[in-house]
């Protein structure tokens, strides 16, 4: 039906981590540092005072890239990892055998083990919560105070995300691996 993706105006990120909290809350992700679907990355600021390199201090929110050619899906022995009708990469806990191959194959460290089901879990663009309720927003996008995230249907030329990607330059992470991520970073 749709082909959901996300564009991140990452330079606006202030590392408040509201998105991480909203995600845990919305999707019932367990507490614990290892158990996260989304995260905000930061680097140590380079340079010495007063010649600080401000550009090196940008924050980079990230998560599962919902690759169009997802290595995690290719390596899964039981089709537990699959593309759903909205092209969102999902895990079916009934089929997952916890071989952890996908955790090794995902180039973005996007997967972790959910201790309740003992299967692999990751961001699913709120497919079981908001999208299932008919909404077309994600919790992280909804909560972000600086409006970093734009979520929408990449196949719909009139969606905000399609519009933005047409007019603003952007890049994807580890593009050379040919995974075709659907997470776009706006420059």
């Amino acid at each position, binding site marked *: 039906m749709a082909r959901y993706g996300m564009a991140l105006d990452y330079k606006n990120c202030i590392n408040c981590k509201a998105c991480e909290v909203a995600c845990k809350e919305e999707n019932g992700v367990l507490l614990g*540092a*290892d158990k*996260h679907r989304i*995260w*905000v*990355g*930061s*680097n*140590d600021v380079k340079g010495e005072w007063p010649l600080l390199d401000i550009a090196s201090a940008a924050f*980079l929110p*990230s998560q599962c890239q919902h690759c169009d050619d997802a*290595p995690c899906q*290719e*390596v*899964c*022995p*039981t*089709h*537990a990892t699959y593309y759903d009708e909205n092209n969102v990469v999902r895990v079916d806990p*009934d*089929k*997952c*055998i*916890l*071989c*952890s*191959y996908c*955790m*090794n*194959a*995902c*180039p*973005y*460290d996007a*997967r*972790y*083990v959910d*201790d309740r089901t*003992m*299967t692999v879990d990751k961001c699913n663009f709120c497919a079981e919560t908001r999208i299932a309720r008919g909404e077309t927003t994600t919790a992280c996008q909804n909560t972000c105070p600086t409006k970093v995230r734009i979520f929408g249907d990449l196949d719909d030329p009139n969606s905000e995300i399609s519009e933005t990607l047409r007019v603003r330059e952007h890049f994807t992470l*580890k593009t050379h*691996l*040919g995974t075709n991520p659907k997470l776009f970073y706006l420059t």
Partner: protein
Amino acid sequence: MAETVEKTEEMGMIDKAKAFVSTIPYNKIGMKDLTDFEKTPRNNLVAVLTLAFVAMFVVGVAIYLMHGHHAYNVTREHPWGLLIAVYIFFVVSSTGLCIVGSLGDVFGFKDYEMISKRAIFGSIVTILAGFAVIAFEIGHPVTMLIYNVISPGLTSAIWWMGTLYGIYLTFMIIEFVFLLKHDMKNARIFGLTGLLVGLAAHSNLGSVFGFLNARPISNGVFYPTYFILTAFITGIFIAYILMGWRYKLDFPTEAKKMLIGLAKIQGLLISILIFFVTWKMLTDIYGGMPNRSEVAIHILGSWTFWAEVILAMLIPLYIILKDMGKSINAMFWASLAGMVGIFFMRYNLVHDTQLKPLQMMKIKEYQLTPEWIHYFPSMTEIMISLGGLGLCVLLYYIGSKLFNLDADEAH
């Protein structure tokens, strides 16, 4: 009417199968026979260690059943731990023994026929030990058996590896039965098929790592081919250990001839391996490619890498080259060292693949920038691993009492 015919046919099949099974030669043994071994200090030590390891297996599995993967030190960044390495260790051993066993009964090299039955039996018990270990690493082994069949992921190297190993085990068992029955023609047919399936399974295991585009240190053609080479090397090490144990290092002429032959092959194989590893390291480092070069340099600085090189390559090669494989007693000890080296080889393969974090930014407050992923196995992982070894030795011992693993007299 038709039903009765079918029934009788079915009965016929069952009867035939029963008749077939009843012709498999084996010795009737009881508990007494099992405890009946020469009570030398060496034998006693091995017996105690084996039982202790099996006990550890039971305890380890119990802890795992209570705490799941929390009993292991695997993490989000290092999801594969010691048990995967030990699984690989056992299945490499199995493939290796299958290759060594095939020399005689598949390819018809007369000198090597005397070890065929023993090696094929060894290949069965090693893969069973491997399966016993992996069953407690895979989170849901029963789900695996079901969904592997009804929802096969044909693009997954793990699917191919697991499925082919299952088929391989079946062929090995059939081959072994024909060997026991001294039906060399059928043994050859099943042996050859089993060998081909085993080699395919094994290189698929290499491709589990080779296909990881996200991990430049493992990605590529190296592991699928290297796995076959190291399997053969492992097979010869174990052949030495099995024969040395069987004859208490006092070999009859025929065994000597075979072992010297094997040592010469081993010399060649280890030389090729050193050549392989050297070039792998050099290409990894050359040009400073990110995520590959620094990982390779890091590996060169780890003691486990040198344990692998010294124990599995340099010591055995030195002993072989000293007098062209004639010191077979020394080779027995070198083979024991070699197997320790091979263990490190498997451990390194698994650990080194995951050394480099895929996410290089800090995601927690007060965190240092990620550099290398650390992992050290937990007690439970170690217990289950040693348990696998215990099971393997125990099964082999029972088998050696139950079946005649020596070559038949007619040969």
